[in-house]
């Protein structure tokens, strides 16, 4: 008996959805095994997870707090990965966006309610900060042919150090210097009221607020989609991601394209950073155990990959994975294993990767001795 893998001629539509979905199911099954092996009850654990993510009071609120930055990170990753530009630096670009966004808020903000002008300024500043940070690996790639994976990633660590420095190790503009607590435990200066981003409150679950950033994320998704599907920019980006030689031949200006895509990706990440400050923390969070510990940027890659780099799928998946993370954070304690969330996310991504091959290829089991080939039996997508 022989198993042969043949390439499909067309990619069936239904698999495009089935693969990510199946991956999630598979991941939960495998994680259940891990849980059992370490002495936890998977059913109750998952039950708790789901409750904490979506069902309990205020849970969607909490989920959105995680899902919003995650959506930005996912979009940032999707924007670049689609073109085979592996921008792993969304994390650092978010920090820079938070820094510049907070600066705009602190400088321009005043009393009174949320001001459209200030918020717009924060948006622009945040996007610019993220784009600028992303242009460092972009320039290195475009002009010096340096691999962007490592450079963007290493800059994440540098960005984190800058963030910590601004709050903990210096008397910077961002740092709260007044008040009693200031010298005891360093915190960021709170944003003035006009720089606080409003939300939209629904009467669900005892009052759920959808943050402004969430709307921005949706908007960014739409813009990204339009950009890639309908514009020359997107066309060129697609060709460049597909075949560099064809792109040269088509007259695509390679360097400019690389810089542009990195800038777009970084801008989205930076916008996510501004949203962090404007929507949630209302001050610059430089605590190494705060924003930097969560790893939104890396999870964003999972989000993007699961959504196969489609912007709208990324937002949806961000919401779902946000629920997962939120639940993980809420439940963390002796009865709920820390790190489980990362484990599940990793397995989801593994299965999505493995499932990819099924949409591109068909597995055929044939008997070698006889001349009859079995009907194209496909190995079932690894849901048990």
């Amino acid at each position, binding site marked *: 008996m022989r198993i042969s893998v043949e390439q499909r001629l*067309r990619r069936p539509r239904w698999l495009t959805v089935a693969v990510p979905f199946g991956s999630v199911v598979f991941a939960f099954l495998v994680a259940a095994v891990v849980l059992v092996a370490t002495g936890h009850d998977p059913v109750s654990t998952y039950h708790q997870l789901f409750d904490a993510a979506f069902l309990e009071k205020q849970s969607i609120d909490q989920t959105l707090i995680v899902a919003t930055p995650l959506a930005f990170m996912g979009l940032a990753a999707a924007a670049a990965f689609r073109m085979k530009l592996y921008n792993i630096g969304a994390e650092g670009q978010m920090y820079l966006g938070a820094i510049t966004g907070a600066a705009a808020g602190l400088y321009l903000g005043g009393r009174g309610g949320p001001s459209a002008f200030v918020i717009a300024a924060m948006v622009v500043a945040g996007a610019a900060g993220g784009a600028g940070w992303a242009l460092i690996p972009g320039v290195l790639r475009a002009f010096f042919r340096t691999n962007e994976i490592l450079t963007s990633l290493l800059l994440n660590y540098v960005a984190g150090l800058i963030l910590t420095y601004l709050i903990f190790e210096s008397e910077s503009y961002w740092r709260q210097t007044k008040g009693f607590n200031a010298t005891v435990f360093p915190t960021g200066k709170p944003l003035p009221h006009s720089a606080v981003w409003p939300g939209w409150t629904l009467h669900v679950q005892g009052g759920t607020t959808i943050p402004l950033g969430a709307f921005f994320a949706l908007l960014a998704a739409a813009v990204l989609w339009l950009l890639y599907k309908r*514009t*020359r920019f997107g066309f060129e980006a*697609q*060709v460049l991601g597909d075949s560099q030689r*064809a792109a040269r*031949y088509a*007259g695509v200006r390679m360097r400019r394209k690389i810089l542009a895509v990195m800038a777009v990706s970084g801008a989205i990440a930076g916008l996510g950073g501004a949203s962090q400050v404007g929507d949630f923390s209302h001050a610059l969070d430089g605590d190494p155990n705060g924003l930097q510990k969560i790893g939104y940027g890396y999870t964003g890659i999972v989000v993007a990959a699961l959504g196969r780099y489609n912007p709208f799928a990324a937002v949806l998946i961000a919401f779902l994975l946000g629920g997962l993370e939120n639940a993980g954070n809420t439940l963390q304690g002796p009865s709920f294993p820390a790190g489980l969330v990362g484990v599940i996310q990793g397995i989801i991504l593994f299965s999505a990767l493995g499932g990819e091959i099924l949409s591109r290829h068909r597995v055929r089991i044939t008997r070698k001795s006889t001349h009859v080939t079995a009907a194209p039996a496909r190995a079932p997508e690894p849901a048990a």
Partner: protein
Amino acid sequence: MREITKRFPGVVANDGVDFEAAGGEVHALLGENGAGKTTLSHILTGLYHADEGQIFLSGEPVAFQSPRDAIDAGVCMVHQHFRLVERFTVAENLVLGDRRGAGRRFRIDPRAVESQVRELGRRYHLPVDPHARIWQLSVGEQQRVEILNALYQDARVLILDEPTAVLTPEESETLFTTLREIAAEGRTVIFISHKLHEVKAVSDRVTVLRAGKVIATVRTTDATPQSLASLMIGHDVEATQRTARDLGGEGAVLEVRDVWADGDRGAPAVKGISLAVRAGEIVAVAGVAGNGQRELAETIAGVRPSTKGAIRVDGRLLKRGDVRAAFDAGIRYVPEDRLGTGVSPSLSLAMNLELRSYRESSLGPFLRLRRMRANAEKAIEEFDIRAPGPDVQAANLSGGNLQKVVIAREFSGEMKVLIAASPTRGLDVSAVATVHSYLLQAAGRGTAVLLLSEDLDEILALNDRIVVMYEGELSEVVDRESIEEIGLRMAGETPGSSDSA
């Protein structure tokens, strides 16, 4: 080989093929591109598994699970695209495949291999420097390494796949001598080709394949080129012939003056080339692969920036390395790398048709998707492209259809200069004829055509003038009918001089 059948999605490559070859003979496997010769040889060497059928060596049935088994059984192949590790030396490459005798030890000593390489090289007229790294060698020398590899393994059956594609006529002659010597030792040589005169020159017997089936096996002495041709193709085909045209004193449309360009490794690949092509003229550039033809084509098309010199179209100077400017000036380029360069593989047919002109056809920053589709449908009609629809991925099209897509795209707009690099490589006879007819059409409409090809037959059939490229430089052929002169120039020699390179 008996009743060999091999199927791929969408095509039956080998259909009940019976093939046998004896020790001590040179047996040619003849067929046009796509007839199934390479597939058959890959089955014989263990690279593919046959769906049906059996293989016998010296009467014993054998089953090859992998190339390793085939090599161990003494079946070795010299491929069309060499299977050598570029960064290794010749000696290291030979050690790589070796499992018998001295090389079997855990620790290796390439120096012991070197003396053997020299010895073998001497014996079979295949001299090669064992210390040289593969990327430093010329294509002909690389082929010698492949053959040496097989002899080093003491191959009983040696298969060569289109070996003369990369050789000058003179080198081909030497190769034939070598092959006959190898066969005379009792080994079996299988020679795969689609060129009739070669098959006549070197083989003892010929098996003709067409569309996956064996048509006939004959003794070479009993066959004539015409009989072989009709067996191979199944009907009479008019070879494209260029009728002589009087181009009068028209000025050059494309003028290339002292152009230099660097290759991928940084060394100059195009060295001071000057060339002029008039409207309606076909200038054919002959030469063995790797002498700078690709780089020259890319430089004129603007894909590769020139380092020195000037390129002019209708007198206007073009900016270096500016693809868009070249395209706008009327230069059209059909690259030899169809799938990787000429077309963006995972994009749709419709999008590929716009690959060069999307800037003009778009509305501001936005693409006109509906118009693109409509144009694509028209092009599919007009150029008879066999495809399920405009949304099919380019990678799923056959070679011939892909080339039609490229041609459909390049022939749009005002085409003043057409650069066609190896346009018919790997295509079957009818596709070749179609492409040739397009080239002639273009010339007929007044386009200046620059045809770069490694296929001498194509060059001879389609030219108004012939130039030969060798090591980045051009020389003009005086007597266009003289294969001898062309061959000499391809090897870097000027006819009439008595010294050799």
